[in-house]
């Protein structure tokens, strides 16, 4: 008998980001929403979590559920602060993790470094071999496993990964090695490569498994600290942790597949976007989260985030588990502007980062950045500068004058405006490349802007991209925490078929979908949290015979005929490439199902306190500011977001400020409030020449 907790309890979504830990707490009984934002504590993120609960005035005893997004594993991988991990692999192949796929970090420049995730002396070989069909060519040297285990334990390893060639085809040797290790290994941290990812390609599978093993002890330790802190605070409810696929799993089991949490931070923001877009009637979105050093871009189609199982989180660091497909483009508020030797203006890719950061942060930054330009143009509030280390506008102007305005032969204000224009051109280009590589024309989407700096550039970017509408959620600065609060229970399944569609057995597809669905429903039923409904998303990855790239085709029912598949694929292919190839057969590569257990909906309108809203936009107006826009300086109205009436209509140019972000409307842009508390902006046509 499984126990299901009642679903009317209070829940909190808590997301730990690089700078802030955000919290959204909901009381379904009263509809009350609490928000909190406190500094992250990166050494032990649990303190930030407790701080956020305290700041929100949460009664831990009354809370029933916490959904948590953590960057513990992300930071561990990117900073290479990993657990000491050993690898046991097939004789002859210990260097696979170091050799990679014979690439280099940049197309031009013969320098660049790569540090393998497990050092060579902790990569041991044992005799064993399968062929590509899973036949045993060399039996497993069981004594060799025991000897290797001893070497690794003596070397201080706290986790181990077993990675054998062709284990995806026949995992018997990996399983047997796992059994032997479990008898000898002094802790729980044993990863078998095929169990994390059962696909060919030894480098990608090996790195994925090695990442899993290397972060497992770290995540397990963190979760136990966190649950310990929560218990000491009187918490008796459940803790669920966000995965990179945008779904959540229980804290007890999350460390088993720790690699799946590595990209969970960006995923939760995209989940919030999908949820918000569905509620707002804008289910097709490009999400845009502009941070200090980079910008995350993702696509949401029909209120479902695009998912990929081929994400590389940095050079030669592939993690091939299904994850929300978030692409990072190298421009953020800290991107540095410079004049090249050719006398042209360039913004990025160098960044001032978070430390020292832009000049206006007052931490000693001396390079002109996008954020500084926003400030000089009146797009950010200069009054607030005083709180940031006492840098004056004049100091920033001096830097812009020396570094940009004089070399370009323009005024400081023109230089600052040029920085914004160049930044928007660069970011728009990068967003276009992301959407095209995902097979989408940006003009068919709305732009969902969040993060601290996102809304400031969103409307101009949309104009540049030909995107007609921009959606600004009620709380752009806590979007990731909202993502935790609305996340579904989710399990993704991929089965590789890899055959021309006319060679599929009748009913084969249906059987695979059925098996995937049954397994997913079983896993959701096992959770202690109830789902309000279960839905299935079926798709297939296809290609023309002879091709290597895949195109995903969504299915609205699980048993299409071969003719139907071919026609769906040809249509999708034409839409994408404008090429019709009607005499070449199609190949069906992967069969995919996502089983999604929905959670009770969140009333988004409560994210801004309804009691605080005023009756008219004039009542929400806080003043005016001189704003440089399209080459002229104008006095424009400034509004306080929390005071806007729900059905506000604001015509640009205007500035809308709120606690953690600023929205800028250009000439003739029109923002309208909707019933969920979002602002939906109709972007004026025409681009600055």
């Amino acid at each position, binding site marked *: 008998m499984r126990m299901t907790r009642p679903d009317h309890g209070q829940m909190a979504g808590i997301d730990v980001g690089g700078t802030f830990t955000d919290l959204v707490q909901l009381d379904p009984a009263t509809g009350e929403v609490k928000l909190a934002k406190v500094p992250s504590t990166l050494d032990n993120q649990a303190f930030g979590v407790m701080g956020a609960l305290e700041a929100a005035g949460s009664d831990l005893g009354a809370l029933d559920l916490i959904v948590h997004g953590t960057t513990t594993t992300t930071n561990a991988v990117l900073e290479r602060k990993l657990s000491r991990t050993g690898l046991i692999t097939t004789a*002859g*192949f*210990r*260097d*696979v993790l*170091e*050799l*990679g796929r*014979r*690439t*280099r970090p*940049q*197309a*031009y*420049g*013969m*320098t*660049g470094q*790569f540090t393998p995730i497990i050092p*060579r*002396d902790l990569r041991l070989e044992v005799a064993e071999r399968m*062929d*590509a069909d899973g036949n045993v060519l060399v039996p497993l040297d069981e004594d060799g496993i025991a000897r290797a285990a001893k070497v690794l334990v003596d070397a201080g390893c706290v986790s181990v990964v077993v990675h054998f*060639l*062709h284990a995806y085809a026949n995992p018997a040797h990996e399983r047997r090695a796992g059994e032997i290790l479990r008898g000898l290994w002094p802790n729980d941290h044993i990863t078998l490569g095929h169990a994390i990812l059962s696909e*060919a*390609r*030894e480098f*990608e599978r090996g790195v994925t498994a090695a990442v899993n093993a290397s972060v497992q002890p770290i995540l397990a330790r963190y979760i136990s600290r966190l649950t310990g802190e929560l218990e000491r605070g009187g918490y008796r409810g459940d803790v669920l942790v966000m995965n990179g696929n945008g779904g959540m799993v229980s804290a007890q089991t999350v460390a088993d597949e720790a690699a799946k949490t590595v990209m969970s931070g960006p995923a939760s923001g995209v989940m919030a976007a999908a949820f918000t877009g569905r509620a707002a009637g804008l289910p097709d979105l490009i999400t845009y989260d502009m941070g200090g050093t980079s910008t995350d871009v993702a696509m949401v189609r029909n209120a479902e985030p695009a998912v990929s199982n081929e994400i590389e989180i940095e050079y030669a660091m592939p993690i091939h588990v299904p994850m929300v497909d978030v692409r990072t483009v190298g421009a953020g508020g800290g991107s540095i502007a410079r004049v090249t*030797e*050719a*006398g*042209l*203006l*360039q913004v990025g890719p160098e960044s001032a980062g978070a430390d020292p950061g832009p000049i206006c942060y007052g931490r000693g930054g001396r390079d002109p950045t996008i954020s500084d330009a926003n400030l000089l143009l009146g797009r950010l509030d200069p009054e607030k500068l005083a709180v940031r280390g006492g840098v004056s506008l004049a100091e920033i102007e001096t830097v812009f004058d020396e570094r940009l305005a004089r070399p*370009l032969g*323009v005024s400081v204000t*023109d230089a600052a405006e*040029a920085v914004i*224009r*160049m930044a928007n*051109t660069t970011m728009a280009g990068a967003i*276009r*490349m992301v959407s*095209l*590589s995902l097979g989408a024309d940006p003009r068919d989407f709305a732009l969902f802007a969040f993060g601290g700096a996102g809304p400031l550039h969103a409307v101009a970017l949309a104009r540049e991209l030909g995107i007609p509408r921009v959606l600004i959620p009620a709380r752009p600065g806590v979007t990731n925490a909202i993502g935790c609060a609305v996340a579904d229970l989710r399990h993704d399944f991929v089965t590789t078929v890899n055959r021309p569609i006319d060679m599929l057995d009748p009913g084969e597809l249906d059987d695979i979908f059925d098996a995937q669905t049954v397994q997913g429903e079983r896993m959701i039923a096992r959770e202690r949290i109830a789902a309000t409904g279960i839905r299935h998303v079926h798709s297939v990855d296809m290609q*023309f015979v*002879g*091709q*290597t*790239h895949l195109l995903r085709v969504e299915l609205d029912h699980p048993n299409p005929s071969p003719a139907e598949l071919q026609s769906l694929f040809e249509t999708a292919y034409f839409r*994408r*490439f*404008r*090429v019709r*190839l009607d*005499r*070449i057969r199609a190949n069906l590569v992967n069969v995919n199902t996502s089983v999604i257990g929905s959670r009770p909906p969140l009333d988004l309108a409560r994210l801004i306190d309804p009691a605080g809203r005023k009756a008219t936009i004039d009542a929400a107006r806080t003043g005016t500011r001189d704003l440089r826009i399209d080459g002229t300086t104008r006095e424009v109205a400034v509004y306080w977001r929390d005071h806007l009436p729900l059905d506000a209509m604001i015509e640009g140019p205007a500035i809308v400020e709120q606690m953690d972000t600023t929205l800028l409307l250009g000439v003739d842009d029109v923002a309208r409030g909707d019933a969920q508390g979002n602002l939906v902006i109709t972007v004026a046509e025409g*681009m600055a*020449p």
Partner: protein
Amino acid sequence: MTLDPITLSVIQAGLQQVCDEMDLAFSRAAFSPVIAEANDRSDGIYDAADGALIAQGAGGLPVFVGTMQYSTRTLLSMIENGDVAAPCQGDIYIVNDPYLGGTHLMDVRFARPYWRNGEIFCWLSNTGHWPDTGGAVPGGFSASATAVEQEGLRLPPVRLFKGGEMDPEIYAIICSNIRVADQRIGDVRAQAAALDLGADRLDLLLDRYGDDTVRHAITELRRRAAEQMRSFVARVPEGRHESVAWIDSDGVVDEPLAVRLAITRDGPDLHFDFTGSSAPCRGPMNSVRATTLSSVYLAMRHIFPEVPISAGAFEPLVVSGLEGTFLDAQYPRPVSGCAAEVSQRIAEAVFAALVPVLPDRVTAAPAGTSGNFALGGHDPARGRDFVMYQLSGGGYGGHAEGDGLANGCSTIGISKAPPVEIMEQAFPVLYHRYALHEGSGGAGRYRGGFGLDYEVELRRGNATASFVMDHGRFGPQGALGGHDGAPNQVTVWHGDTPFTPPHLSKAQDIPLAPGDRVHVRTPGGGGYGDPLTRDPKAVANDVRLGRYERDAARRLFGVVLLPDGEVDEEATRLARAHA
């Protein structure tokens, strides 16, 4: 008309975006894995008057950085002379003739005019590496060809598309002369569609900024790119900087070929004089002029990646002394080695000449070979013939900031190698090893990166092995006192009997029986700086990780290790003082 630098910057980004989108569209729709996976393609925009490069996709294969402007230029002059039919709306030319501004036959170029108000505003062109264009061996890399006819079908510029429709007769001729023809239609459509996409995107750019503004911007950007390159050229001290880089042999005649280079800075320009390089060779290690120039440009771009790819950037780089050498081969010299191998040796010569005078910018020599091993045969278990390619990387050179990368891609490429598991799925082979080529990194203050060491066995049927590699006789050059990297080693095991090909890393059609093995150890990168100045702890670490033998610490680096592997500081000081 004078344009402000901001408008110029924005238009430059816009032109770049058009090319990047063409690159993306071509790769995503292409069938050939060489294009789709390995990105062995490039897309660009070229001047209507002289074919000069206006902008090229950032993701293009480096070796094409300078070639397509020569092929476009040649096409324009052939049209002007009446040698080739003039274009109408909707026409796209196809050409793969190496001597008309190309590389090897497999690199097939498409070119289409971009029309604006009834006139040609500029040209759009792309190159894609087709998996086969006919010839003596599948794939086109014949190590023993002595004339271009043996290398494949050679197409002069002809209009494959006329008025927007493909000419089925020309296409039928092509298909009758190449292997696996049935899938090529996918590549042809992808290649043409990428150019059409580029035209659509250019429409938007011109509509937005105006034809005249963009035209002026293109002229001005070219001038400024030249200025930018000159600002970097000025960092090269005046005087003559010489180097020689060696190719083992041409695959037919067993004699080394020399790339002799003297770089001289003369005012704002940098002169690359190849006088004294070897004469054209009998085998396929010849280069054509366009590839030679492109190799110089790509080497300079590796050194100064900041400069945008544009004809202006090439203007200050003046190349001479090619006439009569194997770097300017004429019909019918075989050229299949030019893009994959000779180009890398030209780049090595540029690096070797400049590393002493630009030590912060230039690396010691990288492995510099594409490591092309082809295995063709019959698989009785599947009842079909197969051709397998194993391309492999090698070590990169040490440099001022650190050691060289292990198993990096060729200097002129950016593509990934296929995984062992995929190779074993597709072909009747079994890999015994895929490992670091231990000890191969050239010793230096910053050592070279390590090459690859793999051994692969034929499991069933019969097959022949062919190799088109290089650096088998001479390792990649060390710099500033660093040692050369280890050379390429190819051994074929017939049972227990080893066989080393006479040309070392070049051979054609060596028969293999089941159980026979091919063992390849690719070159390590050259070392950078005196190895006796390397941090002894870094040496101890390399020994601890098994990258070098223990005795190499003493022999190569003058570092004495204690029995526990730690550095014996005193003994090391003495050893280095007496070295």
